[in-house]
């Protein structure tokens, strides 16, 4: 059985038909061909599939399609067009925070959610904010550095909407 759903995705209104229990992750990757959101575990443990739903960080592998009605969803494909992304990108580059890149899209959205909540985080707060996102390559230090740097360089930016 399919249901009809309407929601906002990366700033655009979308209506589609899908099975109610389909994971948002599959909806994005298979049906909408947005593959920037990654699957690392399928069980809510790694954060590779993290997206923003109404500004909250959610693991797309745990979200059934049925709950998406009327929601506002942001994935890396939308986020990469924003001013906030631009700052994070430049800080990730400066800090050397990307290696294999598989955790990176989820990590960026986690950083966005974190900075939105705490625009001037301490290193500990950054670590706590990223604790749901696994990275096997970097040991996290350079990612933490990148986010702290972004907080500084993008001061004020995280109190304005993402513009999507």
């Amino acid at each position, binding site marked *: 059985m399919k249901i009809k759903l309407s929601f906002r995705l990366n700033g655009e209104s979308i209506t589609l038909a899908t099975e109610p229990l389909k994971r948002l992750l599959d909806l994005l990757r298979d049906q909408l061909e947005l*593959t*920037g959101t*990654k699957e690392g575990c399928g069980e809510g443990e790694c954060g590779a599939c993290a997206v923003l739903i109404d500004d909250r960080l959610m693991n797309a592998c745990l979200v059934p399609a049925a709950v998406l009605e009327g929601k506002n969803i942001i994935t890396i494909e939308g986020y*990469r067009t924003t001013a906030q992304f631009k700052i994070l990108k430049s800080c990730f580059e400066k800090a050397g925070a990307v290696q294999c890149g598989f955790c990176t899209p989820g990590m960026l959205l986690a950083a966005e959610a974190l900075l939105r909540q705490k625009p001037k985080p301490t290193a500990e707060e950054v670590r706590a904010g990223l604790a749901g996102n696994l990275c*096997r390559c970097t*040991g996290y230090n350079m*990612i933490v550095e990148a986010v702290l740097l972004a907080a500084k360089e993008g001061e004020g930016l995280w109190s304005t909407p993402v513009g999507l």
Partner: protein
Amino acid sequence: MRNISEAIKRFDFDEKIEGRAQYAADLKDRQMLYVKTLRSEKARAKIMSIKYPPLSPGYFIVDYRDIPGENRLPLVFEDQPFLAVDRVNYIGEPILLVVGPVKKKILAIMQEIRVDYQELTPILNIAEARQRQEDFIFEGKSCFVEYEYEKGDITEVKKKAWRVVEDEFRTGYQEQAYLETQAIVAAVEDQRITVCGSIQCPYYIKEALRQALGWPEERIRVKQLPTGGGFGGKEEFPSLVAVHAALAALKAHKPVQLVYDRQEDISCSTKRHPAVIRLKSYLDDRQRITGREIEVMTDAGAYAGLSSVVLQRMIFSVGGVYNIENLKIRGQAYATNNVVSGAFRGFGGPQAFFAMEMHMENIARALHMEALALKRGYFLRKGDTSTTGGKLQSDIKLAEIVEKIDKISGYSRKRRDYDAADGGFRGIGCSVFFHGCGFTGSGEQEIIKPKVRLRKYRDNTVQICVSSSEIGQGCLTTLRKIVAQVLEIPVEQVQYDYPDSDICPDSGPTVASRTVMIVGKLLYDCARKVKARWQEGEFTVDQAYVYPGHLQWDNEHFRGNAYPEYSWGANVVEVAVDPLTYEVKVLGTWAVYDIGTPIDEKIVKGQIDGGMAQGLGYGCLEVLESHGGRLRQNNFTNYAIPTAVDFPATESGLIDNPYEYGPFGARGLGELSLVGAAPALAAAVQQAIGRRVRQIPLTPEYIMELMDDED
């Protein structure tokens, strides 16, 4: 010319951060079919029969009868089938594949397949393998390989020994836990097969396909895609996945995608070898260590895989960074009905250095000395010989390394203070270690025979053609920098894409900390030839590896230079152990390395930080146990890898010591950074709790056991 160590922007940075990088699971094709692997549920059994449900059109079963070539994975020993024939040797061993367009239907078909087993008595660990008298797994023997070598005269030393210090250590499994699971895409077109995916070693896969399909090389193409981490887990294992995908594509006449889910990946891919290591050091009447006997045993699992080579690295590393003249070192890799053990960053080094460094701690305690003071007295120096008698020809700056780490970490002072406080549940430990860069012995020349190619174009761009794969470690950037620096051209003028076997010669696998030091040096030499002909317009230059004249190796007797060169390092870890919960909290980590010239400081730092976290995870978090041949942990909930809150940032430094034969003086790094973390952590915990630590990982349960034991 700019300083080569100065960091530049990674060439794979933009596509990765923007989420545009296409990993294997991201490739979409309407035609594409999915593949799932049906696996053994038994640790050891004969397959009596398999019953299949009727298949809807478009669905296929692939089993061993669909293998047109040889059903043997081409590795050191060819004992492992691609798909089981009439027996299985571990839980998770692949038996057959189900192929089709809809994932759910494939799973439904898998549910209905009935495999009828006749169970056999399995061998479930090293102890059982040692006791077993008959009915072995591998060629009527308990071990895949057994090695022994000596240096000096251990018999004489034993006669004169005044004191003996003995230890036994155990280490557990570790899962690579790359964030992207095993993933391969395969397609057949015009009599050729193309296999793409998440891999470290394109030419290993090409060879496996050649063997499985029985096709000539020209019909096989292997391409690497952006790869979400490897750490050794995508060294030999993907050959199996790639052959499965290829067989499925051949049978279905459609492109296929074979992507493991996390549980499947943890349950049946290769792991770091569990090991038992026994050490005996003989001391003379002046309290000098005069000789050692060391025995290393690993659980290799059900098939030989790379266990022989891992064991070699283990027994060539287990002597540590010390110059001890008389040695007898033995090693055995036991065949058990566990999942196959294999390559993992460090490749036997982490087990070996954990054992040796803890053993030195214990000798120091027995002699009422501070551990680092004891160690310093035996440090290897230029001109000394390694455990295999190979002359160490480069400057070895261990004294400088430990001096520097002592300074930045405050090790000596804290060590004394914690000792004075008699533990107090705080401790600090220091490990000193090396990693042999490149293949063991003369493997670079005898086995790998690496080649590189540079193509110069009229527009003055240069293309790098090598099989080295970018797995996050940064080689798309570092190798470009080396070539650009030699040619004195902007790095943007150098092209280098993910390797494609149609374009790139076999420069060897992306393993053994060899990419910068070996492949990078070949490119360096090759680029010099290109430079000499720069005016010629368009041309190609190949460069093949030549075994350096200053090295020699006797593989029969394990004599000579066990590695082309070594990188060196020291780690310090400071901990607090919770006196109630026995949880280990890491308070600080420090690292100093001699990797010769760093080719890119930022990439180097990334390797240092990442290796440290993996090594600390190995030391205290990552519990992976086999019970009855089944791994108890199979997801990220029960197999905990480090998160951002587990460990503090590592403070690290490098020693300036360019390596004469490396590109711009560089040595290897990728593995070194994992090797020393666990022993430093274990030494710290040992000081903190005032109890002998005999195994890793150091879980609260294990520490509680230690506290109860000796009270």
